């Protein structure tokens, strides 16, 4: 009937004609969308940073992992988890028990924990009472069928035997490692992971390729040297020297202050001299290396911080977390009410115009479309403005928290998608909010045009 362009033009004229009201409505939408975009953006950035941090932290802890592996055999649980494919039921059950709260676990399995539960349930009577107790817990669903679990329990002694075999083998290997390292600590021995100790590790039956050996050795050296520097905090003379240089009280000097100072080239050189003067063994160190260690520590701290700050990601809608999802929904609801109110006022104010248009032959659908489009225009404007504001705020804030880590893990794609979602949400909210007001407008009787105040 009427070209879309003309409808949009009439809707747009409506916006322009009531610019002040429109601006307020746009501001309401913008605030809600800024809020949405802000929490959406933060959760997306946190997610991305968390992923980046996780792999780096794993890298950072490689030495620790090896130290653990080379000093004690894995626990039965660890073996089950590492080889979940071999005993899927065992893994599922252990997962289940580990998530239970204390009271329920107590009822189900007494004082037994993890694999001990399997031992406990070998007894038929105990099994019976276990299932009875389970049936009473309405809110809890056992992840494995009863028959399956019973047959698994029957096979448990055999599996346990296998696990014991694995552990014995590991213990034997560990004994050989112990011989190889002699008087050295494992960490010290690992500094030679790219040499004779690496060979010993391989000989003992562990898998260690050349690249892994190199990074392991380098990391072990870093850790040892870092330890050396950190120990200087206990050296009174050095502490006094640092305090004098930094213009602080010796008692206020912390490891952090020393590390921060060492990131600077002059200071690291100076500190090495001080260490040598204090009679410490610094033959393996030079200023560049000290600075490298300081940088490494700064990175590690940032990673730990990132891990802490991203610990809450992943829950609820799009990783926002349940609480934030609620807040976002409430803010959107408030926004919808606000828009609806503004649109209703617009309809009330323009009754004569609407009625006149109907006298001129406008269909109800036309009137509705005009108001829906008018609201959508406001939604688009508010959505874009709010999304930009929210995005800027969240990126700036996140940049202060994660610094260089964010630069490497900036989630361009998902943030773009988030912005698109937020703008679309703005338009949709505005359109939804305008449904009732536009219906009211469409139902207005044309004879209202005759009314005279």
């Amino acid at each position, binding site marked *: *009937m*009427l*070209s879309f362009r*003309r409808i949009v033009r009439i809707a747009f*004229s*409506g916006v*322009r*004609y009531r610019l002040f009201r429109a601006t307020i409505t746009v501001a309401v939408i913008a605030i809600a969308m800024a809020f949405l975009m802000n929490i959406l953006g933060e959760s997306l950035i946190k997610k991305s940073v968390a992923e980046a941090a996780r792999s780096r932290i794993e890298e950072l802890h490689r030495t620790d992992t090896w130290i653990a592996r080379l000093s004690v055999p894995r626990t039965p649980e660890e073996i089950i988890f590492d080889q979940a494919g071999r005993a899927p039921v065992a893994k599922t059950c252990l997962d289940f028990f580990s998530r239970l709260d204390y009271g329920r676990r107590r009822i189900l399995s007494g004082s037994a924990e993890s694999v001990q539960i399997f031992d406990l349930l070998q007894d038929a009577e105990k099994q019976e009472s276990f299932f009875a107790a389970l049936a009473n817990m309405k809110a809890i669903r056992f992840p494995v069928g009863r028959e399956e679990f019973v047959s698994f329990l029957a096979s448990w002694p055999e599996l346990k035997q296998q696990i014991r075999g694995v552990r014995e083998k590991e213990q034997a290997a560990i004994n050989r490692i112990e011989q190889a390292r002699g008087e050295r600590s494992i960490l010290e021995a690992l500094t030679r992971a790219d040499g004779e100790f690496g060979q010993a590790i391989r000989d003992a039956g562990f898998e260690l390729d050349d690249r892994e050996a190199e990074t392991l050795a380098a990391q072990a050296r870093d850790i040892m040297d870092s330890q050396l520097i950190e120990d200087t905090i206990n050296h009174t003379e050095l502490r006094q020297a640092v305090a004098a240089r930094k213009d602080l009280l010796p008692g206020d000097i912390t490891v952090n202050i020393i590390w921060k100072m060492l990131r600077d080239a002059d200071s690291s050189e100076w500190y090495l001299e001080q260490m040598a003067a204090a009679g410490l063994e610094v033959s393996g160190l030079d200023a560049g290396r000290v600075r490298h260690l300081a940088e490494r520590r700064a990175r590690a701290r940032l990673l730990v911080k990132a891990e802490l700050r991203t610990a809450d990601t992943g829950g609820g809608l799009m990783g926002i977390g349940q609480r934030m999802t609620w807040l976002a929904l409430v803010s959107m609801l408030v926004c919808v009410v606000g828009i609806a109110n503004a649109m209703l006022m617009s309809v009330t104010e323009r009754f*004569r*115009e609407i009625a*006149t*248009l*109907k*006298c*001129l*032959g*406008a*269909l*109800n659908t*036309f009137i509705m479309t005009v108001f829906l489009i008018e609201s959508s225009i406001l939604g688009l404007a508010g959505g874009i403005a709010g999304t930009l504001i929210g995005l800027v705020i969240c990126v700036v804030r996140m940049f202060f928290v994660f610094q260089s880590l964010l630069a490497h893990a900036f989630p361009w794609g998902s943030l773009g998608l988030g912005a698109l979602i937020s703008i679309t949400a703005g338009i949709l909210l505005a359109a939804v909010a305008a449904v009732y007001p536009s219906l009211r407008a469409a139902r207005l*009787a*044309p*004879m209202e*045009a*005759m009314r*005279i105040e």
Partner: protein
Amino acid sequence: MKEEQTVQTSAGERRIIIRTIGMKKFYNRKGQITQALRGVDIAIFDAEFITVMGPSGSGKSTFFNLIGALDSPTHGRVFIDEVDVAQLTAEELAFLRCRKIGYIFQSYNLIPYMTALENVTTPMAFGGVQTDEARKRGMDLLELVGLKERWFHRPIEMSGGQQQRVAIARALANNPTVLLCDEPTANLDHHTGDEILAILQRLNKERGVTIICATHDHRMMNVCDRLLWIRDGAIERIARRDEVKVELGGID
């Protein structure tokens, strides 16, 4: 052909454009019933100029709403061009309002954010006229009411009389058969009112548009064919102008 018809105003054999049968309208506001119209029967002929008079609250506007298909009667029927308005769907009603009837309001009711030309072309757009064609016809209509030079003005930039003339041009947009005017001169001064009346009279004479005009304005008597008095929701009297003139002359 149409001009012939207007010449023989009093001829009996003429096409009826609007007919009402037992038309009543009651308003129910919070249980209180107002009988705005209490049974109106009238036939209005094509190309006739009718003036509707009556005291305030007598039901003139209600009468207009009903014969203009803006509202439906509580009882009785309204035929516009021999079509029962009650039988029409929403789309057909919109079509009727768009093509058959032009409305002129006391308060002009121009769309405030549109220029004079846009106001005039809006009903054409509803009627499906192409943009270029609408523009051309809109300019012609503005010329007809003497506002061609002001086509780009918005209502706020025009005087009341100019606005009313734009409103007349707009009412004529789709060549309606009937022009309904509810107190078109009530908000205008004497001189401007005369101008508007002159335009209406010219439309009636030259284009054969049926004009129905509610008014308190006694000058209207000079231009109309028939006069209709409404009092308390009922027709008090219908008379041809020459009859009334005689009476008035007698009084003078």
